[in-house]
Every structure is written in C-alpha cells, then in structure tokens.
C-alpha cells in the first residue's frame, strides 16, 4: 500500500503521537478541569501544555487564547459565525475550501456581503487584488494559507499587511499549511488562526482550534455552542473569559495529548524540514509524469510555491477511473474529484470533473513516488 492521501489526513502518525494517546487513555484519562483530584489536574496540565505548544508554534499571543475545537472547520465556523453580522462585508479568495465557502455562503444568505477575489489558473493570488478589494470598507478578510487542491502557497503575510493597514481582522485557514509552511501570527499579521491537528501537524483526528489575536476582544466572538466549562458553574450564563467562553463540553484530551507529542516531534525536525522533503518528493513525481501523453498538471510549476500536493488529470480518462485503478491495481491511495473545494476547481478549470490529487507526507519514500509515477504511466498508456 502506498498512501498518497496526506492532504485528507496524514498517515501514519509518528509513533510518539500514538503512544501519547495510548498512555493518556490508560494512565491519565480523567476529565481535565472538571475535578480537583490529581488525575484531573494531570489531564488539565497536558491540555494546557498543548495550548502553550500550539501558541508558540504559531506565534500566538497567549496560551489562554488558544481555543480547542474538533478541527479547522469548526474553528473557521466559530470565527465567521461568531464575528460577522448582516451588513458586514467579508473578502475571501476563489481558491477556498468549503470549510470557508459554505459558512460564508450561509452568512451571505443572511445579509452578509461577500467579495470573492479571483486567483490565477494555477491558484496563485495576487495580494494587490486583496488591497484593491479593501478600498471599500470590510469587516473581515479570510483565506487559506495553502490550497488543498493545487498545494499553492498563498501570500499570507502580504495579505495580512494590507488588512492590518486598513484595521480589518484577518482570519487564516491553516489546515493545509500548518506544520509545513512557517506561519507566525505576529509576523504575518494574522488576527485569527484556524488549525487542524490531523494533517501536517501529524496529530490525531478530532483535534484543532482557533488562536485569537489580541486585536479581537475576549467577548467579540459569539460562541457557537454553550455549556459546561468546569468554571463559574453557579452561573447559567456562559463565562466571558477565554478559552472557556468558546470551549464547552469535555475536550478531546486524549487527542490533545497526541497533538502535544506530534508538535514536539515536528519542532525537533526544524521549521521547514518537512516542507522541503515534501517539495522534493512532489518535484520528483512531477518530473516523472510530466511527459505522459494527455497528462495535465495543475498548480504552480515551481515546487517551492506548492506544499506536498500534486493535482493532475489525463485526457480521455475520468478521474474516478484513475483513482479506482490506482487503488485496485497498484495499491496507491489518492483522492479524486472536487476535494470539497468547488471554487478552487472552477478557478483552475477542472469543475465539475475534478482532479486526481497525490499528496505526500513526512513518511513518503522516494521509491513510493517512483511506483506511483509508473502506475500513472501505465494507466495513461492503457486507458486511451
């Protein structure tokens, strides 16, 4: 089996991550922040230390401003639906995933004005187009740090700078970039950073969150859900302070124990060790398949402008057929279709058919890339 679906979720996870989850469930598994006994405090300490790690990993302002959620989608919804009101204007790009687009379209139906700034056919965004869109007043700019379809790395810092100059809060979806592309809330002018644990942070599924910059007040975001927080229980009104205000219900502490281990693992590798490795792998793949007859590649040609994602189609063969053959005949696992990002596929000209996406990870080996390239060549030769 060759796993090239790391864009959907990274696999496998580091051994230390799996062990941390296992150890939590067997040895520390009390409810964090709900009881005063030692095991509960130990569990709370693990959760808190994960806040500290996430905060320092993304250059956040304060561990108490790290709000844990089950994934980036939840965090993005929390930020968008908690901040934006009817009549507000939101600026985004034409490369967004549905995690951003669907809540925005839903808000649009409630009277929010939406400006979608178009990107190039390779998914590249010209940041000055955002500056132009900012000429009219806006209440929020939201975009992903990298495309899940083409891997295109977006100009986060440039866009952040333009938004900051106008005093407009900037929300970044780091699902595809967090752990790969160095991101720092302070240096990149990010006010709200949504992350997921299970992709290139190499943590367990069911972990993620929103880091809230100091430009956004503690009470500015209306909670999506309310409930027990282990704090101020005498009060039937949700607490006003972070992270409790936005964190109701028992957290995924086992998952967070795993995320803590994976963040330590990532930091040992250095800030862009994994990114370079992934770019080398996708460049190897690109070179091996680029000459295949009828094969079309999407996204920037330069591997340094991409994460470890390569999207392609082969003329005359449906992407679903390519995906099925890769899986059934070669044991190569990819993701085909629209990748929950219809806007991005419209932008690159592959809507509604979609593409075949091969997404490498930290554990992908050179020979696996060679085998995948061989398989693509065989399918292209036989299928047409």
């Amino acid at each position, binding site marked *: 089996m060759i796993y090239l679906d790391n864009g959907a979720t990274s696999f496998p996870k580091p051994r230390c991550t799996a062990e941390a989850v296992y150890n939590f469930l067997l040895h520390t598994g009390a409810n964090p922040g709900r009881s005063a006994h030692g095991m509960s405090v130990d569990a*709370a300490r693990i959760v*808190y230390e994960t806040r*500290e790690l996430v905060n320092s990993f993304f250059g956040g302002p304060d561990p108490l401003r790290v709000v844990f959620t089950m994934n980036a989608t939840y965090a993005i919804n929390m930020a968008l639906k908690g901040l934006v009101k009817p009549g507000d204007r939101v600026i985004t790009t034409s490369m967004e995933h549905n995690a951003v687009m669907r809540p925005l379209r839903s808000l649009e139906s409630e009277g929010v004005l939406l400006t979608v700034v178009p990107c190039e056919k390779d998914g590249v965004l010209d940041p000055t187009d955002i500056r132009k869109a900012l000429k009219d007043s806006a209440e929020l700019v939201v975009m992903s740090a990298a495309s899940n379809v083409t891997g295109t790395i977006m100009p986060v810092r440039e866009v952040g700078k333009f938004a900051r100059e106008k005093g407009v809060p900037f929300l970044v979806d780091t699902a595809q970039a967090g752990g790969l592309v160095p991101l720092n809330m302070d240096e990149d002018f990010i006010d709200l950073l949504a992350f997921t644990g299970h992709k290139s942070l190499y943590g367990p599924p069911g972990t993620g969150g929103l880091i809230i910059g100091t430009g956004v007040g503690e009470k500015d975001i209306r909670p999506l859900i309310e409930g027990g927080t282990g704090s101020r229980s005498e009060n039937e009104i949700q607490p006003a302070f972070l992270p409790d205000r936005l964190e109701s219900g028992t957290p995924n502490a086992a998952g967070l124990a795993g995320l803590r281990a994976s963040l330590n693992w990532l930091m040992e590798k250095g800030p862009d060790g994994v990114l370079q490795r992934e770019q080398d792998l996708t460049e190897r793949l690109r070179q091996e398949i680029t000459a295949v007859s009828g094969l079309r590649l999407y996204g920037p040609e330069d591997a340094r402008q991409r994460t470890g994602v390569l999207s392609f189609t082969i003329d005359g063969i449906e992407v679903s057929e390519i995906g099925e053959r890769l899986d059934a005949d070669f044991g190569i696992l990819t993701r085909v279709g629209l990748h929950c990002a219809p806007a991005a596929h419209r932008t690159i000209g592959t809507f509604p058919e979609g593409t075949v996406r091969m997404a490498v990870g930290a554990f992908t080996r050179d020979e696996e890339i060679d085998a995948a390239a061989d398989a693509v060549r065989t399918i292209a030769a036989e299928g047409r």
Partner: protein
Amino acid sequence: MKEDMKVLLVYSTSHALRIEKDLKIREVSCKLVPVPRHLSSDCGICVRFRAVDEDSVIKAVDETGIETMGIFPL
C-alpha cells in the same frame, strides 16, 4: 512552627495552570491543591503559596490580566 500559607482562588483550571507556570518562572514556590472545604471554587483547584510571597503572587497575576476570586489565608 508551621509556615503561614495562603491560597489564590481562580475561576478556571486553565487559569490556575497559567498562574502556576508564571510563578515557577518567577521562582515563587507554589502548588496546585484542591480548594479547602471552607472556601469554594468551581474549578476545584487553587494555587497554594507561602504567605510571605503574597506581593509577588499579586504582581504575577496582575500581569496576566486574569480575573481571580481572591487570596485567602489557610
């Protein structure tokens, strides 16, 4: 003679953990303990410290901006 101790009560376990970390950095010795029965705090744990360190504790807490329930003698 046993040393005088005090406890700082907070509203949330995250806050207790944060204050514990900040005090450790300042080399103020403290311990997270269950809230004594005659007091009450919802999160159930509080920060116990030596009474002589009270000023340092107040200063550290002020810098975090965390709202607390106050300091009580043991």
